[in-house]
């Protein structure tokens, strides 16, 4: 390969030999098309007219009043499909088409990436298979149905706890056997090189727009950017164009589940140690032997024991800070935002909001905080209802 895909000591491509030629082919194609004028124009057109970019930067005044400082929501939840995922699936889907691949596969946790892939499969006329853990199939049934309506085949994965990790295992295995005609549309900024680089590229429109919007709407950059971190795609997209602005604090919020001390969580950077899973070195939740641990989170999209390599690096060098939000606080904040802003946030994105809600009263009133509202919560209404039934 041309690049090593390293972020400090993290990243790389720890995969079986059979995948090397395909990852090389992918790296080469990405290098060739990323700045190709026709490719860029086609992606820009679909981003605008199919997906709905640019997304608004919304000053959430009532939520701001509640916490005592200024909170702006980057409304990725308004995108087609209901999450930031479409930024990446449009980009990679077009790349697949330009590479001459006829089939797409993808893994999914919450079903948002699966849905965003199924949409693009339909749009580009490509046969699509989505690998999804059995637990997630059960808890995100609405998205399963939507994927099927878009013509995708949803393959339930039994292994492990039937969550995102297991879906990735099986998608990788399937890819190994079908490398010639199949493009693996990876959903987050993790996995083997070149995926972290590709996903970052297609998601960084979030911060490119936001930076411009802050300058225009507020007259200055935010003091803090907060995003939830599963594998890290919406967070790296929200951070990318602020990384070189040292005065903008970057905060990634991981899934604290029932509390980091209970062991029932998915907070890889907060509580993990470096290890190798799914082709990359990253912080990893693992036991003292190096066996990967089962994770737990109320939000399927964050229920993953690894994390993107660039986040590990940003954490180590102190450029970004990673924290965890617990299920109970997430549910509380879901209720709060819904009631005072009329916005249903995805449970994933609610982790970022919960952290910010926890800062209530600790920041000066003029402090400007951006929260990346990575997705909308329609898919989660059933889960919320199960935990906090309406009277």
């Amino acid at each position, binding site marked *: *390969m041309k690049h*090593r895909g390293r972020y400090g000591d993290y990243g*790389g*491509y*720890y*995969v*079986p*030999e*059979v995948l*090397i*030629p*395909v990852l090389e082919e992918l790296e080469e194609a990405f290098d060739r098309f990323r700045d190709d004028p026709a490719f860029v124009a086609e992606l820009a057109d679909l981003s605008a007219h199919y997906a709905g970019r640019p997304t608004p930067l919304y000053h959430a005044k009532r939520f701001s009043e509640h916490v005592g400082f200024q909170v702006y929501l980057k409304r990725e939840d308004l995108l087609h499909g209901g999450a930031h995922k479409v930024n990446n699936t449009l980009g990679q889907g077009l790349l697949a088409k330009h590479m001459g691949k006829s089939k797409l596969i993808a893994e999914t946790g919450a079903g948002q990436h699966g849905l965003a892939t199924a949409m693009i499969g339909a749009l580009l006329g490509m046969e699509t298979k989505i690998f999804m853990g059995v637990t997630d199939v059960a808890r995100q049934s609405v998205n399963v149905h939507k994927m099927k309506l878009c013509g995708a085949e949803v393959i339930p994965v039994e*292994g*492990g706890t039937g969550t995102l*990790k297991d879906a990735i*295992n099986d998608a*990788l*295995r399937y890819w*190994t*056997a*079908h*490398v*010639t005609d199949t493009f693996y549309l990876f959903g987050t900024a993790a996995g083997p090189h070149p995926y972290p680089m590709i996903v970052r590229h297609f998601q960084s429109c979030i911060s490119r727009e936001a930076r411009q919007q802050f300058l225009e709407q507020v007259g200055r950059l935010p003091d803090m950017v907060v995003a939830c971190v599963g594998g890290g795609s919406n967070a790296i997209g929200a951070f990318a164009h602020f990384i070189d602005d040292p005065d903008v604090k970057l905060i990634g919020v991981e899934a604290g589940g029932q509390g980091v001390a209970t062991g029932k969580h998915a907070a890889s950077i907060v509580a993990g140690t*470096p*290890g*190798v*899973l*799914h*082709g990359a070195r990253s912080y*990893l939740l*693992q036991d*003292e*032997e*190096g*066996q*990967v641990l089962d994770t737990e989170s109320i939000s399927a999209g964050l229920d993953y024991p690894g994390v993107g390599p660039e986040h590990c690096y940003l954490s180590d060098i102190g450029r970004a800070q990673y924290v965890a939000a617990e299920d109970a606080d997430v549910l509380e904040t879901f209720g709060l935002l819904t009631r005072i802003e009329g916005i249903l946030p995805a449970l994933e994105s609610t982790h970022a909001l919960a952290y910010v809600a926890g800062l209530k009263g600790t920041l000066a009133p003029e402090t400007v905080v951006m929260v990346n509202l990575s997705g909308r919560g329609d898919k989660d209404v059933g889960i919320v209802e199960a935990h906090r039934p309406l009277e």
Partner: protein
Amino acid sequence: MKSYSDVFSALRREKRAALIPFFVIGDPDFDNSLALVKATIDAGADILELGIPFSDPIADGPTIQKADIRAVRSGMNVRRAMEFIRQVKQYRDIPIGLLMYYNLIGHYGTEAFFRDAHAAGVNSVLVADMMIDDAGEVLGPIRAAGLDSVFMVTPNTSPERMRRIAAKTTGFIYTVSVLGVTGSRDTLSDSVQDLVRRLKSLTTVPICVGFGISKPEHARAVADAGADGAIIGSRIVGMIEAHLDDPARAIAEVSAFVRQVKAALSTSG
């Protein structure tokens, strides 16, 4: 300690390919796993390929994944696996190749892992999710420990890359017969004989073929193509899975099968 070259040169004189059964160490538990390995040695195994179980074996199909889970649940870990290997070596001096996923090695400590593996009687370590571009992380410690290196070649490996892989391999090239993960298959891939011939024209390093070798005639076919060994994994592991309630029966079936493969490899073609 018997080396690969001892075994491969003896077999070349006999014009025979090595029979290499694969087991997940500790499947279904320590004692039955050891009994299975010993029975296989008695049935004529020339080399053993053993895996230390990992929670997320991405190069393996469902049969071996399930074996990994059984073995981890039975309490197998790296330290106990080293003890297992010592006990195998006490039974017979047979070369042992380890099949590993990198996270277990990194966690144990790379240098300590290879040193302890060698001390336990291991001849080589193949890291399934580590390819030659990053092999620097392991090659130094592998050599320092006195172990042989084993790397994979697959049907889509370019000739240039095959040469680089061969140059870093001192044990044998693990030649993957199919595009895909481990698993039993009814028929042998058409391309495998061609792949073996291409490799043979590029290198003198021994070539062993694995993934999907499920029947005596498959082993025979890769031997006829010039391979120095046939590695049989999922078919054997599947027999263990089929008789979890009757380990004696699993042992009987596995040894009968290994004897059949041995016979197929021994008749002159």
